[in-house]
């Protein structure tokens, strides 16, 4: 276990020094979350001027809360997928895969980097929301930790699917690292309730943990109620999707070792 911890740290150290040596990468961590917050923050402010005080505050809170929480899932997913892509871009994967590092240790290191990317990406946006729009995400209360945890977990299993696809299709699939979670945004009911979706889309939405998280967020903001049913559903769905993603990743890793894809994955 001690050896595993050291190998996990070794790969995390590789990414940490990469960020230390590259300021554009550091800036990129917070760039999109802060930009999103600026755009949606001013949009919320504009809408608020057209509404009466009470509903305006609630609508603004739902919009900004949605933006910030969805960034957690996005940054979490990109944190894993981009860490894997960094190895691919630097053509270093061969050395990593012939070291004693187990695949699960590599994934754990990427998850660790994902946590750091979420913190360094989302916290500046949370600060911007507080400074410019007097919006305090932490006002959601302790349940916020559970929302965060669920969205991070969702980012992780989506990233495992992305990495599995890159293992299968090579660097040609790398754009999925930026686009895959966006494809789930309409179903995640980030800015509107699931009930506004057509019935068929509602079924898809309720199969995603994110829709339950955002329904839960609206429950807190609109009714000051923690919807434990939605939270339980989110955790259960994350467990199921994580298990499926792990099996797909393990299968693709083995398939890549069979097909020789690990030798030319950069192409």
């Amino acid at each position: 276990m001690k050896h595993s911890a050291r190998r996990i740290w070794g790969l995390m150290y590789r990414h940490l020094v990469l960020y230390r040596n590259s300021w554009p990468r550091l800036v990129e961590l917070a760039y999109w979350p802060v930009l999103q917050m600026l755009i949606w923050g001013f949009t919320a402010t504009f809408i608020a001027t057209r509404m009466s005080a009470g509903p305006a505050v609630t609508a603004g809170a739902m919009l900004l809360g949605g933006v910030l929480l969805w960034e957690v899932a996005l940054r979490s997913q990109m944190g894993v997928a981009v860490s894997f892509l960094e190895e691919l871009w630097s053509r270093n994967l061969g050395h990593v895969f012939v070291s004693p590092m187990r695949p699960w240790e590599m994934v754990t290191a990427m998850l660790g980097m994902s946590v750091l990317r979420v913190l360094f990406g989302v916290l500046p946006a949370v600060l911007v929301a507080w400074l410019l729009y007097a919006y305090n995400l932490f006002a959601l209360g302790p349940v916020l930790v559970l929302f965060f945890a669920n969205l991070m977990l969702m980012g992780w299993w989506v990233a495992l699917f992305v990495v599995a696809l890159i293992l299968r299709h090579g660097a040609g699939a790398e754009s999925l690292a930026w686009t895959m979670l966006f494809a789930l945004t309409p179903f995640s009911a980030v800015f509107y309730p699931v009930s506004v979706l057509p019935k068929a889309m509602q079924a898809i939405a309720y199969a995603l943990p994110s829709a339950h998280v955002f329904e839960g967020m609206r429950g807190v903001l609109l009714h000051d109620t923690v919807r434990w049913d939605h939270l339980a559903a989110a955790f259960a769905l994350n467990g199921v999707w994580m298990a499926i993603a792990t099996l797909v990743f393990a299968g693709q890793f083995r398939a890549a070792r069979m097909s020789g894809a690990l030798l030319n994955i950069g192409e």
Partner: protein
Amino acid sequence: MDAIRVNNLTKRYGSVLAVDGIDFTVPVGATVGLLGGNGAGKTTTIAMLLGLLIPSEGSIEVLGHAMARDRFAALARMNFSSPYVLLPQRLTVAQNLRIYGHLYNVPKLERRINELAEALDLTELLDRRTGQLSAGQKTRVGLAKALVNRPELLLLDEPTASLDPDSGDWVRSWLERYRAESGCTILLASHNMAEVERLCSDVLMLKTGRIVDRGSPQELLDRYGQEDLEEVFLDIARNRGLRDGRPAGGRAAGKPAAGKTAEATA
């Protein structure tokens, strides 16, 4: 005691047979060359020895560990260097060595990095970004990475490719000295015949996925009646045959070299 034991090793990619049922052993402490033209199966064989590729058939045992079920125990005791597999270019030499020191659980890592830097003339380069180094310097950094865990088995894929003659000679001299001092087993894939002749006690000649001949460099020269291994290589590649009239490209029947030898059949 063998560092590597390979039995009936076969790799198929669909209908393409990349490695065709090869058998060989590499004794502990030997330096064995893997020679063959492009597409002969050298890279595929090395990839299977490293666990990057799962064989279609056959078995590999490295340092007593079966690669099919215990590859991580073997990987901890071996290492690999190739100019075609890079280290992260934006990181400094010291950072790269530190990463791999952690991945291989190297004790007293900073001391080991300094030892390697001194031995490979890298001390002045430790804080330089790897991407800013010359080809020769990068080769030395690659070697330092490959030696960070004091491997008992070193797999080298064209270690002097793209180096000028002076740098290439420096690397070859260093490898000779290192092997003599450490007793490390080396399996070397190369297109540089002079390098193989100088470094290897035995040579496995590969062609279309099969081992078509084997022996010490001198034995091969005698067998083909040639002055250097390049001519032997060309004889085999062009099916010009052995001096005694037997065709090249078939089953190897040469007597294994005495002492530290690679034994192979196909």
